[in-house]
């Protein structure tokens, strides 16, 4: 009985996370089809054709995005970017403090991409990809 209750509680706790799905969004000016590999290259400083934005470290959507797209966790990303910065290859993407700020930044920056929960999508941004 205890086990069933526990499982019920666990599933209740987990369900909102399970429902959330990360989507890659872009400025409406991006008309070309964007592949997951391109998004990964943009977020790993190997393709400078687009401007990426990040959510803050520890954010669940950020974790899911990087899990699916770059296969790197926050500590790895931090170490990776310190290598890039201190070898003069570039600076990490700008971090947006909230989903609203992420959408505003993407909506107002031509050629930029970001990622948000699919539930937060509105017409100010364009969904490019569901990784």
């Amino acid at each position, binding site marked *: 009985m205890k086990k069933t209750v526990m499982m019920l509680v666990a599933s209740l706790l987990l369900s909102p996370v399970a429902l959330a799905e990360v989507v890659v969004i872009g400025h409406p000016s991006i008309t070309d089809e964007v592949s997951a*590999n391109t998004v*990964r*290259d943009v977020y*790993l400083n*190997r*393709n*400078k*054709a687009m*401007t990426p934005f990040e959510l803050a*470290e520890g954010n669940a959507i950020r974790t899911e995005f990087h899990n699916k797209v*770059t*296969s*790197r*966790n*926050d*500590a*790895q990303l*931090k*170490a990776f970017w*310190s*290598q890039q*910065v*201190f*070898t*003069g*290859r570039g*600076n990490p993407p*700008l971090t947006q403090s909230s989903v609203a700020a992420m959408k*505003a*930044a993407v*909506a*107002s*920056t031509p050629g930029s991409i970001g990622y948000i929960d699919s539930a937060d999508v509105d017409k100010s941004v364009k969904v490019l990809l569901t990784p």
Partner: protein
Amino acid sequence: MKVLYRICPLALAIVTGPTLAQADETAQMQQQIVVLQQQVNKLSQDRINLNGFFSTGYIRSNNDAGYAGSTTSSEVYDLSVMALQSTFSLSDQVQATMQIIGRGSESWEPEMEWAYLSYRPTSELQLRAGKMRQPLFMYSDFLEVGYAQPWARAPQTVYGNSPSSYVGADAAYTINLENSSITTQLFGGNMEDKKGSASVDVRNSFGLSTSWTNYVWTLRGVISSGELNLVATNAGLPPVEEERSSYLGVGVSYDDGNWQIISEATRTEIDGFYPDVDSAYLSVGHRFGAFTPYAVIGWTESQDNEERPAMLGSFLNTERTEYSVGVRWDITSGVALKADWTYATGFEDGPNGLDQQAVLVEGIEDTNVYTFKIDAAF
């Protein structure tokens, strides 16, 4: 009726007026917000970037072999490094970067480690000119950025006597393939360095490196050559004058997010009596959340001992095997604590790279070195 005709437009104006004005205002405000947001983006993105790194720590060994400069007394001071780096964007393609470093071992005297201009005509090509770090081996160009490395100290067999900044130019070209990318870099310039009483100077140095990565595996190869001038005043060694020095290196690394495996093999050749040295190391680490324990085995050996007279040989012959175990703990984003124990042995016939005098006089055969370090990047 006439009156009604007259009142009608008026009433219409009264009813619709405010809503029209409101819609107008909202659109205006929305536009203002977009403009402001664009300005904020522009400001934070394009103008100036400030970064830095900091390290401090404690190193101690059980004898005076002088491994990585360690002695039997604590040396917090020697491991301390603080650097500030700023990048100014002159345009989308042109950036000016400078980095100032203060080292505890040099009485914190600030030194301009980097000062260069970079130009990126396309997304694939980057050209730089000025003072930069030489990208010789895999970790050479960020050797002092402890935070960007898994270890408390880069393996000394390969990085123990690594050259520092040079003044010159480089060009890097990146080709993005479907699931991997190749970066090729050409570099050339002159280097001047003073290490204690020794002064090193490499003229007309040039090199080529190329690396391929599929984001998990990385393969890298490098070749470099220059004319070496070296004066070591206190050791009583004859000076090196315009001898050709060359570096060869191959490296492979694997990082799947859990396992972190790095291995390099390098060959340094110097014409004349200075030693030609082969070195290699293998490092294996595994991430367990914030903790990354690692183990390293390293080896270095001079290949031309028979070319040196006995007196010089006892100073310049190189031979050593070393074993390290340690752990990196990512306390919080941007700060890592590291603890390391290194055991080095087999250097009684090849003490070069250590304190030769102490090794020879005291007859030291092995050494245990304990390091505790804090690395930060910001």
